[in-house]
């Protein structure tokens, strides 16, 4: 017959060792998580500098000419940042840092929006803007679909600028936008195109027609503006 001498010490040592393994895994995970957050910060800093630089450039040159305005303000980096932030939120969790980065990102979007819009009005560059409001607080499958539709649309029209905002974000600038466009949380997703508010899901085809219309209008405007400018130049030279 066996004697059942249970080696309690072994059970304890194995437990401690397992805890150690989990803690190491968590430490390594945090290390990489921090690295990722830093990477996000770097991208944001770069975008921030880009915007500031464009703003400055714009102020310097706007009075004189539109030719030198670089149209790379809305750098691909803003899109890259959006993708990485979303991934970070899902995989790193909505930590304080990620939440801070998200606010900062929203702010950069607004700045980019205002600046590009200004440039577009003054220099008559072809562009269309979509402000997109979604929510992460509740499960919004319409929002996911809308996001996908917008991504597809943006891939098709590089001139199209889509700025997405989390409805639930605690940032006064975003809140002001919600007030301006009277966006309600019950009617998400919501889109703002040319100051019109559309709520609920809208497919690519529908949006495409609106965007095309907007482009056409701009083309028509810019031709008339060009002729006006030419006229102005002639009259200036004749003076």
């Amino acid at each position: 017959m066996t004697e059942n001498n249970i080696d309690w010490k072994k059970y304890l040592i194995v437990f401690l060792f397992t805890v150690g393994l989990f803690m190491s895994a968590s430490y390594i995970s945090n290390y990489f998580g921090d690295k990722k957050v830093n990477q996000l910060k770097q991208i944001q800093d770069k975008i921030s500098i880009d915007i500031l630089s464009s703003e400055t450039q714009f102020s310097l040159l706007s009075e004189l000419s539109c030719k030198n305005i670089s149209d790379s303000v809305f750098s691909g980096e803003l899109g890259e940042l959006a993708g990485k932030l979303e991934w970070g939120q899902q995989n790193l969790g909505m930590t304080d840092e990620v939440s801070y980065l998200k606010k900062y990102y929203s702010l950069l979007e607004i700045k980019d929006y205002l600046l590009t819009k200004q440039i577009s009005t003054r220099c008559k560059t072809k562009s269309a803007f979509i402000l997109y409001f979604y929510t992460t607080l509740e499960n919004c499958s319409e929002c996911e679909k809308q996001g996908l539709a917008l991504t597809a649309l943006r891939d098709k029209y590089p001139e199209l600028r889509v700025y997405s905002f989390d409805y639930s974000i605690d940032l006064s600038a975003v809140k002001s936008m919600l007030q301006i466009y009277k966006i309600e949380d019950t009617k998400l997703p919501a889109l703002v195109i040319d100051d019109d508010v559309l709520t609920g899901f809208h497919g690519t085809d529908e949006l495409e027609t609106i965007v095309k219309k907007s482009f056409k209008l701009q083309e028509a405007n810019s031709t008339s503006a060009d002729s006006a400018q030419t006229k102005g130049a002639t009259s200036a030279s004749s003076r």
Partner: protein
Amino acid sequence: MASVSDIIFYILTFLSVYVQVFFLVTFLENRKKIVIRNGAVKLAEYPKVTIIVPCWNEEKTVYKTVHSLLGLNYPKDRIKIFLIDDGSTDGTLKAILKFSEYPNVKIFHKENGGKYTALNLGLEHIQTDFLGCLDADSVADPESLVRIMSYFEKDPSIMAVAPSIIAINSKNVVQGAQRAEYNLSVFMKKMLGFLGAIHVAPGPLTIFRKKVFDDLGPYRHAHNTEDMEIAYRMQKNHYKIEQCNDAYVYTNTPSTIKKLYRQRLRWIYGFMNNTIDYRKIIFRKKYGNFSLFTVPYNILSVFAVGFLFVKMAYSLVDFLFSKISEFQAVGFNLAPQVNHLDLFFINTQSLFFVAILLYFSIALSITLGKRMAEGKWGFSFDLIYFLFIFGIVGPFWLLKAVYNTILSRKPAWR
């Protein structure tokens, strides 16, 4: 905040790692005791042993099985072989009658009643102090019996000794996967032997002292897993079971997923129901590591695999759902959306590292088992097949066994 499912997942993962570490620590403690004997083993005395071969429709394999017993490196007058035909409907009886001329072979024929009834018929006629069974789909290595008997000689308190079971004739991926799994169980069984906590006395050539059956009674139906029930009964009564890692028995494994599914369904169903029958011995100090480690970790694996499967199925449905909604939103979009080669998108969650660790330790256990059983190191693709087949199909027989247990349905033998 972590969801309930995440918390359960963490706990199950923690316990799974705990089990793996426990096995590896046991290995490190006892590694010097694991020997592989190459030459012939000599015993001071050769006790008489009876080996029962229960057969039910096994005309194709039984000849080799009996032949291997006749070829055992053990004095012929010290071995008795009982061939018991359990009401076969094929040519099994004819096949075993070929051996009727051997003086140490005794042939029985009875109506079909299940494996345990065949074994019990054999038990009624036993006149030796040691006995064992050899399934008619297995072949014993010539040195196996003498090596097993050396354990009894060394330690009179040992009541049963199980061999290392090695999968042979592995011709396809399904069988390759099982070969790796058998190697894994050689390792685990040996470790459980050190812990005094073996929970199966497998059909292929586990040798018992006759005292076990004299004291504890004959085999029982035990949900078609009589070899597990006898081990539970022995553990309950503090009868020591050991594993002899260098005694090899070669067994044929199911060649198709369907056959494997049936076999495993029977095993898992048997495990669940025997555990339910013996539930009173779980987490009881007096039953030792068997009660505190073996049974709990087996229950854990049932839960973990079931949970993981449901979780993965949920993710899959979720993924498909999002793909459908993507399709509804934008139609077919073959353009790459995110640059997944970007190192940023590599998962660095802690569970990811823990999962790697778990897979690594399982791979290590299989490798150690291979070394113990075959005496050689080395990587084999069987490992990949094992993770693949048992990871994907395993949950199905497990869930089906749970379903059957709840509805008290008994799975067919084959």
